[in-house]
């Protein structure tokens, strides 16, 4: 019997062997010496029929509790949003799904144009002039951004805020370890969380390649002094890098407008499911300056014409930055990226438009503010811990309740509610604090339910 994914049956394979004058398929593997030739069968599960596989995998996955079943307030790097049904349908079309890097642009205009549209929309969102066709995620985009700053400026230091997302910081450390760049953390105001600009100015010397801020920050508040940070960085000859959650950019000002040279971020919330943290979508964009664009990592799609000089088409451009042309001299080793997630983001953005994205941002921020108001009212809870405007994430501190966040969350879970991420391991100075996220998925009733549960637990 044949195999559904291997069309040539054993019989046909036998005929093929005969036709090319090979006695058996084993003869095609004689180049593998007997010493390393596997003689036993691999110890693997299966083979299973499609039906059995579904049963098996569903049984394993059933031991997950998705946030459609429990009320979750988790964020912190991936965020749950509603994905319009047509986005998922379109991205599953197999002409997109089963294609690869458009090495033959003439046959791949669909993917190329979709990615060009993605690049264009990311530029509008971020206020940048050039965006690439995706990186792995925000964390690796940050790593690449630091490397790019060093390449462009020839300098060796990179400044980040002390409240940077620790996973991104650890990734950054690995990326800069190659050329051995130095990372410097700048402190924050304990009341407002804002980056300490005077400390920044002290650190800004002739040897700083780039300054990085996250806006909104990892802990949800907005950095209100970004204009000052940009100015200080530029005066010292450093590049200004801003990391964003693009969902906020329907409502918030584009980083390009306040001086960013490079904008990076996490594109997952634009039409891609949370999916236990992957696949994600690294946003990477920069201003239109030759020295920047030519140092940008990743695939770039450009517009051109056919040889008739008229018909518009799209191709990969500036491939001389990439590894398949320049090998060890490439700006980055990235080859396969998150292209399809980028297409999903483009479709999502095209569907929401400027009005939808603004309304969505307002909805998330409004719900978050409502949640903060209701939770702040609960005795012994400090919500948020920083006196600053927030977008859709905020901190919740329960030191005065006399309970750890872990215990608080365990209690919440009994009520089928998932609390925010505990932060004490990452920022011990913040005590028993968690990071809460609210999106358009949360109704007023959901937030009220959280509030009464917390009131009960804290009381």
């Amino acid at each position: 019997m044949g195999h559904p994914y291997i069309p040539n049956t054993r019989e046909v394979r036998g005929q093929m062997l005969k036709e090319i004058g090979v006695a058996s398929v084993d003869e095609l593997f004689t180049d593998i010496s007997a010493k390393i030739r596997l003689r036993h069968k691999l110890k693997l599960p299966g083979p299973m029929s499609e039906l059995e596989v579904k049963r098996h995998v569903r049984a394993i996955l059933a031991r997950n509790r998705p946030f459609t079943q429990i009320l979750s307030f988790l964020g912190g790097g991936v965020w749950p949003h509603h994905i319009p049904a047509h986005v998922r349908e379109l991205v599953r079309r197999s002409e997109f799904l089963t294609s690869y890097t458009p090495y033959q642009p003439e046959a791949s205009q669909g993917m190329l144009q979709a990615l060009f549209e993605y690049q264009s929309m990311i530029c509008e969102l971020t206020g940048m002039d050039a965006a690439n066709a995706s990186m792995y995620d925000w964390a690796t985009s940050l790593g690449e951004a630091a490397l790019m700053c060093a390449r462009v400026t020839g300098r060796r230091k990179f400044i980040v805020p002390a409240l940077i997302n620790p996973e991104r910081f650890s990734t950054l450390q690995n990326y800069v370890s190659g050329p051995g760049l130095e990372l410097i953390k700048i402190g924050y105001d304990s009341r407002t969380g804002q980056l300490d600009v005077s400390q920044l100015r002290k650190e800004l010397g002739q040897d700083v390649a780039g300054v990085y801020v996250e806006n909104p920050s990892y802990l949800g508040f907005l950095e209100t002094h970004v204009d000052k940070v940009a100015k200080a960085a530029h005066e010292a000859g450093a590049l200004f890098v801003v990391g964003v959650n693009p969902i906020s950019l329907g409502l918030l000002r584009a980083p390009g407008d306040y001086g960013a040279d490079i904008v990076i971020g996490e594109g997952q919330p634009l039409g891609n499911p949370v999916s236990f943290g992957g696949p994600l979508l690294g946003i990477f964009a920069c201003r239109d300056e030759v020295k920047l664009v030519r140092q940008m990592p990743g695939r770039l799609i450009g517009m051109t014409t056919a040889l008739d000089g008229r018909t518009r088409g799209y191709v990969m451009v500036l491939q001389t930055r990439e590894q398949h042309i320049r090998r060890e001299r490439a700006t980055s080793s990235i080859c396969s990226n998150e292209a399809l997630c980028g297409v999903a983001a483009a479709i999502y953005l095209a569907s929401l438009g400027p009005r939808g994205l603004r309304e969505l941002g307002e909805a998330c921020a409004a719900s978050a503010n409502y949640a903060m108001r209701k939770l702040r009212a609960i005795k012994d809870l400090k919500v948020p811990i920083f006196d600053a405007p927030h977008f859709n994430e905020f901190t919740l501190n329960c030191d005065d309740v006399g309970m750890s966040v872990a215990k608080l969350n365990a209690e919440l879970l009994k009520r089928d509610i998932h609390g925010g991420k505990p932060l004490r391991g990452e920022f011990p100075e913040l005590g028993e604090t968690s990071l809460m996220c609210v999106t358009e998925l949360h109704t007023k009733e959901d937030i009220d339910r959280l509030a009464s549960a917390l009131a009960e637990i804290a009381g």
Partner: protein
Amino acid sequence: MRKKLGLIVNPIAGMGGRVGLKGTDGPDTLAKALKLGAKPVSPARAVEALRAIKRSGLKFDLVTYPHEMGKDEAREAGLKARVIGEIVSGRTSAEDTKRAAREMLAEGVDLLLIAGGDGTMADVIEAIGMRAPVLGIPCGVKLHSAAFANTPEAAGDVAARFLRDGLPLREAEVMDIDEEAYREGRLSAKLKGHARVPYEPTMVQATKEGSAGFELADQKAIARWVLELMERGRIYVLGPGTTTRAVAEELGIRDSTLLGVDLVLDHKLLARDVNERQILEAIEGKPAAIIVSPIGRQGFIFGRGNQQISPGVIRKVGKENVLVVATPHKLGLTPILKVDTGDAVLDDKFRGYIRVMTGYRQMRMVMVSQ
């Protein structure tokens, strides 16, 4: 706009070979060759090349010199040519070659096809430098210059492709026999200059965007790395070539020689255009290193164009202190390198695989053959 092809044939190039002479420069050697029964070689080669261009079907304008310096060959190949200039048939010389090159440059030719040997090519470069692309139809005994195609037919093919589709241009070393060395009984070549030559790379699409751009970037990258590795107090003997010059420039030295050997110490030029004796004197009792690049058509790292770096110098410096630099592009043209220091035992030490620096913190294992 039809492309213009210039053709210069040196009718006496290559005549010495059959009768065992090292070239036919100068009327004495020519007379000797004729007495020994030598027959002209280059006209037939030129015709072969022209026929290859004709086969390509390309429409172009051919500009050439009178009689045996091009017109005759064009006619034999069945090509119409516009003839410029004046010569005395039967008594052509290097001066005619140089004048022809200058006049064709003034005509605005897109490519100059030269049927001749190293001497002829050296004459052309002396006249016009790199102001027009050139390509050599190989007809000489002396074919050390990297500006020659491998065969007359290949010369025709590349010329046609260059004119029709455009091809990247590379910098090729132009060599000629070292008269001084020859008189001393040694055969070695001197670097006379550089020519701009079209070539067919494997990855046309990629390199077409500016192979000259790659070359420069790669040279700078190599220079950056060499700089990082340079030690204070060590004398660096810089061989000729554009890559070693990039190293000097990276150090801030603007007046190093392109065709000669320079000495560098602590990021400063110690001595320019030195000979063997001067090198030996300078490095006596001091730590030293040699930085060389492959030269010529055959990729010689020693023995063509840098004889000042003699066996004595190499032994004194030590093989482990010899750095060979070459861009990947250059190695693509001469994938196997050669040595000919004049000392067979020393040559043997370099045979086999050696490390060649090809970029910033990049090396390649390259074969050095017999």
